């Protein structure tokens, strides 16, 4: 029997060497017989039985019309709509994310005008339903028939355009409504992320001679991301489904197209199943992507750090030798 720890574990530091020896040799490990939870077993069985019955009844349901589902699942109409759904989600989240960072920084600014504007923006866009905003943007031409670029109050105009032609392309009001609305929500979650970073981080960065902007970009925001990513992922998944509201202004994203078809063919249930299956698939992809993002921004906080540090050290050693 050897004395001393066989696996120091934890940090993988040479912790073993200096540890004092235990007073006696290690006694046999405890092997107890676990308590049997009969109630849990019975409960689990009943639940599985009921779920199986439910799934069976759905799969075997003639009203679902599975052949129709498969027909439309990969039909060009659906896929074209799907492309627009993905595009709308991606671009709205881009507008929302960038706008959110800008609004959050404005909101935290010492300048009362900037923080005030940000406050009012958030108040307005969070305070009105996105559905109403979509219809409002689509009708932009009614209250601003013409848009002018110039200097306000000075009578200087560089150019103008008909707002009708701008919003006639459904994507424009859709992106304006979804993106600007998202920016208001994103602003609040970015702000939450920023204020979750310790003040000491900012002080350390400033004391190294980093400018406030550089401090925000290199030190505060990357750490805020750890808090932001899970919620922003949630928002993205929510946005994916919110794009279906565009159908209200005749937008031909996936749901809009399927709706148009079932309005004529009355294959309502199978096409709704198609929509659900695609939304579920995309949500799953987003969930996986979110996991990777969380791992990236959580660096420095993860487990199994000892092995990771060794890998990084080996990588750097290799790089230094090449130089």
């Amino acid at each position, binding site marked *: 029997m050897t004395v001393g720890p066989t696996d120091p574990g934890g940090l993988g530091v040479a912790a073993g060497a200096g540890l004092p020896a235990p007073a006696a040799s290690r006694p046999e490990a405890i092997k107890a017989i676990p308590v049997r939870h009969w109630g849990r077993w019975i409960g689990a069985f009943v639940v599985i039985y009921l779920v199986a019955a439910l799934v069976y009844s759905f799969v075997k349901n003639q009203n679902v019309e599975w052949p129709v589902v498969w027909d439309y699942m990969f039909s060009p109409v659906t896929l074209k709509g799907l492309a627009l759904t993905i595009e709308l989600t991606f671009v709205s989240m881009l507008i929302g994310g960038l706008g959110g960072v800008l609004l959050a920084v404005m909101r935290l600014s010492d300048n009362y005008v900037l923080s005030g504007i940000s406050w009012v923006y958030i108040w307005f866009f969070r305070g009105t339903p996105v559905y109403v905003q979509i219809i409002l943007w689509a009708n932009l031409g009614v209250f601003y028939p013409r848009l002018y670029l110039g200097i306000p109050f000075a009578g200087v105009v560089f150019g103008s355009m008909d707002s009708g032609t701008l919003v006639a392309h459904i994507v424009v009001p859709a992106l304006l409504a979804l993106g600007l609305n998202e920016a208001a929500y994103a602003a609040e979650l970015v702000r939450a992320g920023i204020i979750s970073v310790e003040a*000491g981080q900012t002080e*350390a*960065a400033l004391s*190294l*001679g980093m*400018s406030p902007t550089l401090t925000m970009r290199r030190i505060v925001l990357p750490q805020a991301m750890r808090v932001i990513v899970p919620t922003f992922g949630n928002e993205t998944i929510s946005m994916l489904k919110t794009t279906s509201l565009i159908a209200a202004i005749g937008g031909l994203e996936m749901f809009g197209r399927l709706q148009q078809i079932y309005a004529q063919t009355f294959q309502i249930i199978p096409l709704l199943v198609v929509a659900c299956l695609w939304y579920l698939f995309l949500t799953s992809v987003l969930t996986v992507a979110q996991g990777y993002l969380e791992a990236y921004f959580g660096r*420095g906080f993860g487990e199994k750090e000892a092995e990771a*540090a060794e890998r990084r050290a080996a990588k*750097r050693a290799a790089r230094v030798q090449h*130089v």
Partner: protein
Amino acid sequence: MSSREHVFSDAAAAAAEAAHGQPMVKAEQVWKSFGKLDVLRGVDFVVQPRETFVLLGPSGGGKSTLLRCINHLEKIDAGRLYVAGELMGYREKGNALHEMKARDVARQRSSIGMVFQRFNLFPHKTAIENVMEAPVMVQHRPKKEAEAEAEELLKRVGLGEKLDVYPAQLSGGQQQRVAIARALAMKPKLMLFDEPTSALDPELVGEVLDVMKQLAVDGMTMVVVTHEMGFAKEVADGVALMDGGVIVEQGPPREVLEHPKEERTKVFLSKVLV
């Protein structure tokens, strides 16, 4: 490191040069208040290049605030604060003081290293990335050069084996040594230490003090807020006792710590030196 060979003398020598014959730190009647509370009430002191100046005193006496005023993390309300002859945070034009732009304040701070009680390492960067960050992003030095120097600095503070480890995996003492290396990487002319050992397990205090002593011996100019009397006695060129926002007594450690003149100093020392 205990053998006291010169580990940081090159850095320290360059630092001392930077003062151009001026005192490294000169505080004249510095006042600072938070709301209605006057935290500093007319502080005067001078630190010459290559000197280690230790600020002692009870909590709330204004030591940390004074330190944070030196690199303009806090704005002073009255008086003048000079580092290497340069007024901190303001520009004097004619009879008026002009606030400096953020960019100019950053330039001033970049030559003053600061070490915090809570380390404040960047948790999303490895030890070597922490040390490289400011040289690359602020001084725009080539990444390879900064990396080589960061590695060298981390070796000097005894962390050559921990280059690629994130702060969360380091002990408090190791984190604080990375923080010292991070500050030194900017080749500062002055180092500020704000209770650098107060958040450490007693067993780890020694390793951080060793690095600081080495820096002091090698001639780095340092202003240190600490409760470590041993450090003050051993390496300080000047000590000051602060209480109630003023310096109660200052002078060489042998005078102030062993033959204090002021009653307040005697009371404080009797409580600390048990």
